[in-house]
Structures are given as C-alpha cells and as structure tokens.
C-alpha cells in the first residue's frame, strides 16, 4: 500500500474509535445498556491505540527500537498498574481511584505538551501551535496536582476540612497570575512580538508548569471534603480539555473529539452536582461557605426538643410498618455501612415490609456513588428510587429511616432566606414517622440545624451508621 493509503486507513480507524466513544457514552444512558456502552468505548480505545501503533510503524522512518521499548514497557507497566488497582480497590475507595486515574491522565497530557514544546522551541513553532501546547501544559499540570490532592482528601491522607495556604485566596490568585503572565510571554514570543532565546522560553515554560502545579494544590486544598465530587468532576473536564489541546498540536482528530466529549461531560456533571447542592461552581471553587462558621447557622434557632429513641423501639416501629423508605447519605458511605443497611432491609422484607431506598442525586461522595455502594451490597436495583420518583411516596410511608443524611432532608430548604433555600430535598418530613441514625446533633455541611430532627414525629437514634444499623438488625431479629 502506498503511504497515502496507510495514512487514510489509520485516520479512518481513529474515526471509528471516536464514534465508539460517542456511541458508548450514549449507551451509558440506561443501566441496561451501560455495561455494553463502556465495553464499546473500550473497543474504540483499543482500535485507536492499535491504529496509532500501526501508523507509527508504517509511517516515514518507522519506529525505532528505543521507541518500541518505551511504548511497550510503558503500556505494560501503566496498564498493569491500572488493571491491578482497578481490580483490587474497595468500592468505597473508588472515588479516590478515579481521581488518581484522572491525575495521571492530566499528567500525561501535560508531559505530551511539554515534550512537544521542547521539540518545537528548537525548530520555531507557529503561534497557534504554541497556544495549544502551552494551554495543554498548564491545564494538564493543574489537573495532575489538583486530582492528587482531591484523592488524598477523599482517602483521608489530607484532612478533609478546608486548608488555607499562607495568604489564602490571594496566594492562589497570585500563582494564577504568574501562570497567566508566563503563558502570555510564551505566546508573544512565538508570535514574534518578544525576542526570546530558546533557553529563556524553556525557563518560562518550567515556571508556567510549576505555577500550574501549585495552582492545582492551592485551588483544591481550601475546598471541603464534601465538595470533592464536584472538584473531581471539574478536573475530569479539565483533563479532557488538555487532551483536546494535545490533539490540536499533533493534528489528531480522535484526541480532539474525545477530549471535547470529556470536557463537555465533566462540565455538565459539575453543574448538575453544584445545582443539586444549591451552589454555584464558582462558589465552591472560591471555598464558599464550606469554611465559613456561624454566619448562616444563626438563621434557625434550635426550636423544640429532640426525642431520642432506642434501637429496640425503632426496630418495633419498622418491623410493624407496611412500608419503610431508607434514606442513605454521606454518613453511611463514610461508615461503609452499605452491607448493614441491606441486611436490615432484607430482615424487614422477610417480615412483609415493603422497603425502598430514596437516593438524593448527591448522596454519597460522588453523584450516583450511593447506587454503586448499595449495588455492591447486592441491593436490587429496582429498589433504588431517585428523588423525583420517591418524593410523592413519602406521604404514604409509615417510617422513613435516615442514615447519615442531613442537609438533603432539611425542610428549611423549602423556605427562602437561609443557606440551603431552594435546594432540592427529599420529603422525609412527610412520612408518618421518622427515625434518624446520627452520631450527634452536629450540623451538616451547610452549617445549619436540621428542623427535621426537632419534628415531633422524629426519633433520633444516636449511633454510628454501621453500629446503629447493626443494632436495629439485632433488635428486629429478636422480635
């Protein structure tokens, strides 16, 4: 085959790969086809990688021995590490693993851009190429360090509470300004407006990459652990954009298409999650009220008294109910109590109680994470109900069991004038009786008292989610 034919074949294979990504994502619309969708996307990836290898081997100059070694050893080590960690990670630790994978993806994009820049700076790159290269390097660096910090926070290696760099937001802004100035200098240099020697440009690039890395750290550190899902989603979108930038540099359609797809999806997810928490993305990134104390708490006084309930009493209520709705939240995910909740639900079902789960869109540590955790504990998928679907059913529910969920159950959200006004909530207060498993009367993420807890219908079972559920199960068994 002539060279033109070979190039055409490789290019078409890339397009097939890109089409697989789009169709695969589309199939992830529904639980029934989602797994196939992911596999289709993986097939597309395999096609794109093999086509690239084929193109490199048959291309002008072929592939040198060293290049072969780099690619094969890199694939083996990276692929092996990815395979092993993905197979062995516990499902509760899965959000941080996704964050790590996002970090290495961003790192790879940054390294590709840096290497391109070094090569181009000696040859003299065009203005547009330089723009994409520098953007790829900056965005990739930010995602690399930012995702590592986000993963560290979720893993508990770094405290989840907001941490402020010396100088606070000013430091972050200053770092961002230096990165921006460096980027502009490089672009002006490529455009001929500035005379830069090739060693100067490399130093400036080093500075830009370093400030990008620092910016990733100072951006994520002040954000509270509960907001990490939004941050990971945002960084995921960044990585996609960085990959697309790399695609512009090497004129590769599959990189551009996939990068843009991921950039769009990460953007949508980020916005959906922020909406569900009644916050703007900017608000979260700026450290919003996650770190503020006392400012919003004064809105509601602790009116009414709290009624504590014992595990035995709670068990009797549930065991003799017609239907029970379980509301799992962040506390359940943290306590890793998904197996205990399923055990309790099965005990109740064996007594003829109808059990459903009400899943708030942001329950858990990532959107949809609660579904994954409960699915892992073998909770049948049809029992998991989304907010819009379950909310009317609370009116008919005999008992609502709230496990480690707080702000998403606070009726105060229906009134204007407080920190969570307008946030979509689960209508837990409509149930005939409410049991809340909670460690203390501590406030939720928004820093507000939950009016649900002082509702006369509510009984508080003060316990860790895991212990509380286990105690309930024992009590139900004993009935």
């Amino acid at each position: 085959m002539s060279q033109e034919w070979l190039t055409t074949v490789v290019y078409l294979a890339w397009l097939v790969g890109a089409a697989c990504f789009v169709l695969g994502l589309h199939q992830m619309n529904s639980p029934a086809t989602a797994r196939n969708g992911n596999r289709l996307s993986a097939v597309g990836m395999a096609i794109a990688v093999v086509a690239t290898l084929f193109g490199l081997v048959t291309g002008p100059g072929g592939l040198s021995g060293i290049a072969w070694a780099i690619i094969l050893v890199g694939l083996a080590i990276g692929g092996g590490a990815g395979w092993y960690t993905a197979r062995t990670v516990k499902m509760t630790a899965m959000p941080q693993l996704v964050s790590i994978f996002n970090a290495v993806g961003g790192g790879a994009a940054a390294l590709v851009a840096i290497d391109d820049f070094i090569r181009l700076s000696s040859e003299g790159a065009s203005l547009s190429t330089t723009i994409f290269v520098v953007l790829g390097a900056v965005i990739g660096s930010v995602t690399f360090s930012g995702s590592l910090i986000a993963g560290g926070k979720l893993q508990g290696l770094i405290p989840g509470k907001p941490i402020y760099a010396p100088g606070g937001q000013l430091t972050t802004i200053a770092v961002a300004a230096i990165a921006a100035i460096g980027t502009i200098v490089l672009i002006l240099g490529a455009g001929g407006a500035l005379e830069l020697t090739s060693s100067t440009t490399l130093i400036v690039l080093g500075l830009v990459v370093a400030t990008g890395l620092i910016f990733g750290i100072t951006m994520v550190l002040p954000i509270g652990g509960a907001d990490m899902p939004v941050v990971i989603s945002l960084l995921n979108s960044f990585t996609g954009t960085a990959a697309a930038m790399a695609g512009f540099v090497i004129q590769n359609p599959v990189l551009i298409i996939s990068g843009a797809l991921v950039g769009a999806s990460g953007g949508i997810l980020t916005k959906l999650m922020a909406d569900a928490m009644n916050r703007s993305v900017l608000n979260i990134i700026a450290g919003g009220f996650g770190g503020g104390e006392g400012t919003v708490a004064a809105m509601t006084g602790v009116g009414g008294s709290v009624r504590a309930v014992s595990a035995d009493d709670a068990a009797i209520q549930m065991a003799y109910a017609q239907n029970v709705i379980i509301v799992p939240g962040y506390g359940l995910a943290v306590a890793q109590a998904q197996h205990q909740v399923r055990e309790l639900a099965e005990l109740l079902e064996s007594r003829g109680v109808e059990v459903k789960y009400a899943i708030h869109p942001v329950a858990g540590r990532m959107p949809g994470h609660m579904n994954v955790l409960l699915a892992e504990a073998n909770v049948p998928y049809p029992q998991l109900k989304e907010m819009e679907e379950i909310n009317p059913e609370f009116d008919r529910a005999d008992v609502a069991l709230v496990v480690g969920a707080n702000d998403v159950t606070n009726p105060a959200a229906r009134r204007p004038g407080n920190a969570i006004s307008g946030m979509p909530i689960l209508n837990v207060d409509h149930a005939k009786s409410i049991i809340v498993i909670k460690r203390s009367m501590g406030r939720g993420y928004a820093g507000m008292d939950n009016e649900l807890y002082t509702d006369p219908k509510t009984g508080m079972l003060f316990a860790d989610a895991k212990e509380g559920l286990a105690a309930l199960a024992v009590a139900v068994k004993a009935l």
Partner: protein
Amino acid sequence: MSPDLLTSLAIFVLAILVGFEVISKVPATLHTPLMSGANSIHGIVLVGAMFIASQADNPVSYLLAFIATTFGAMNVVGGYVVTDRMLQMFRKKPTAPKAASGSGGASGASGA
C-alpha cells in the same frame, strides 16, 4: 490560521455539542460510572504519548515519553476496568424468591 487548524476547530466545537447532547440524558444514578467512563476516554492522550515516543531522540524526551505512556496506559486500562466493575453491580437480582417471601410475610403481618 491554516485550513487544517480551522477544520480541527470545527471538529472540536461539534464534539463539544455532541458531548452535551449525549450526556445530558444520563440519569443521576449512572453519574459516577459516567464520570469514570469519561475519565477512561480522556486516556486517549495515550495516543499522544505514543506519538512523542516515536519522535523522541534524546534522554529527556525518552523519559517524558516513557512517563506519559505509562500514565496514559494506567488511565485507560484502570479507567475501563473500574467502570466495568461498577456497572457489573447494576444487575437485577432474581425477583421470584423475594416476591414469594414478601407476599407470605404480608399475610402474616395482616394476621397479626
């Protein structure tokens, strides 16, 4: 700008729009697998890493290309495997035994 670049820009913009269309229809329950699935797709940067590996001709480039390839491969393989593990769990349990025990229990409860 060169015609090639303009074509690339057109592809970029259209792909963003396709991404919005395809993804905005996903139910919230699948958002975590979706995030993970999208996360594996940006592992496509592995292709870029292979490109720089093929052009590398000095120790610095060798090193950069090697790390980039390793990172990219980890992103791709790990991303798809962990997404598959998540989605594997969204299976429906056989409902027959549950329904049986449910009706039996209900009659018992009404009797009580």
